[in-house]
């Protein structure tokens, strides 16, 4: 049997899984619930301060890493989940999910470079 090329995508999935496990809950809590519900100061998401924050080189790298790992982790897992749901058109499924992940990564890269 031929050795698989899965390690490429799996290493992204695994790294992303670890990263998201640490980071995503608290990020959702802050941006999706804390600030919108007024539990955290509204200034946190104020245009000027967010822009300044994002324009810092380290933040750019961190945000790119976050998006990159998160979407590739999700894309790979969803590909398998689609199979678990009984969808056998693996090539189509893989193209859609990996395609979405690639587009998201690309847009994030462009925006973060130009902002």
């Amino acid at each position, binding site marked *: *049997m*031929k*050795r*698989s090329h899965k390690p490429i995508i799996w290493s992204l999935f*695994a790294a992303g899984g670890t990263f998201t496990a640490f980071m995503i809950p608290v990020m959702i809590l802050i941006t999706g619930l804390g600030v919108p519900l007024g539990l955290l100061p509204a200034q946190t998401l104020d245009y000027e301060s967010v822009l300044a924050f994002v324009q810092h080189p380290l933040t750019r790298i961190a945000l790119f890493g976050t998006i990159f790992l998160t979407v590739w982790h999700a894309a790979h897992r969803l590909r398998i989940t689609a199979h678990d749901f009984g969808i056998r058109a693996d090539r189509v499924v893989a193209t859609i999910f990996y395609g979405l992940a690639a587009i998201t990564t690309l847009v994030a890269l462009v925006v973060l470079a130009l902002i």
Partner: protein
Amino acid sequence: MTPRRIEFEILRYDPDKMQKPEFQTYLVPCEEDWVVLDALNYIKDELDRTLSYRWSCHMAVCGSCSMMINGEPTLSCKSFVRDLPNQVCIEPLNNFPIERDLVVVLDDFLGKLNSVKPYLIPREKKSLEEGVYLQSPAQLKKFKQFTLCINCTLCYAACPQYAHDENFVGPAALALAHRYNLDSRDVGRTARQDVVASNLGIWECSFVGACSEVCPHGVDPAGAIQQAKIASTGDYFMDLILPGRKS
């Protein structure tokens, strides 16, 4: 103690007489210290001699009395009547073709087991005079857990990936491959990787973890497969960086 009467619904199949399997019910007076296998033996001796099932050791060592008990892959010699309700459903092991009654066809599993070369492949064969292959307790500890597998195939019955793709090499075989790969006396990893690191090997596993949950000896095939994935990923990138290197 008076025996408790338990209703056993057993999936029967005799290819000589039946087109497809059907349930048959037996009422068995069970002693509370019985296991399900004792109840089956009671049926065989007293109620219906045509019932077929495999068993041998009656002490969870031989791995031949595997079956579905109330939907759970279980060794019938380790399933105690005292833990069961008054109605028990018994079926042949999931994910295997039924040969007859509770007996399933294991050819596929045995072929897969063989395909991962589940034996020591030493660097060089030692003669009798040269003595044994030594190993330290620390080296033994690395893989000892995986030696406890009794090939009962409960993990295959629990694995949804095997259910959906019979070509998947499967939990027990991959765990056993890992066991030999971790053995300090073995150098067969490269040879095994052709099967282990293929798309139908470790990469077919989605880490449901059901295999480890049903294992009667606490072997952790799911863990073994994840460890193998990490190691194989390392291999893959090393091969990219240093093509032609010897692993």
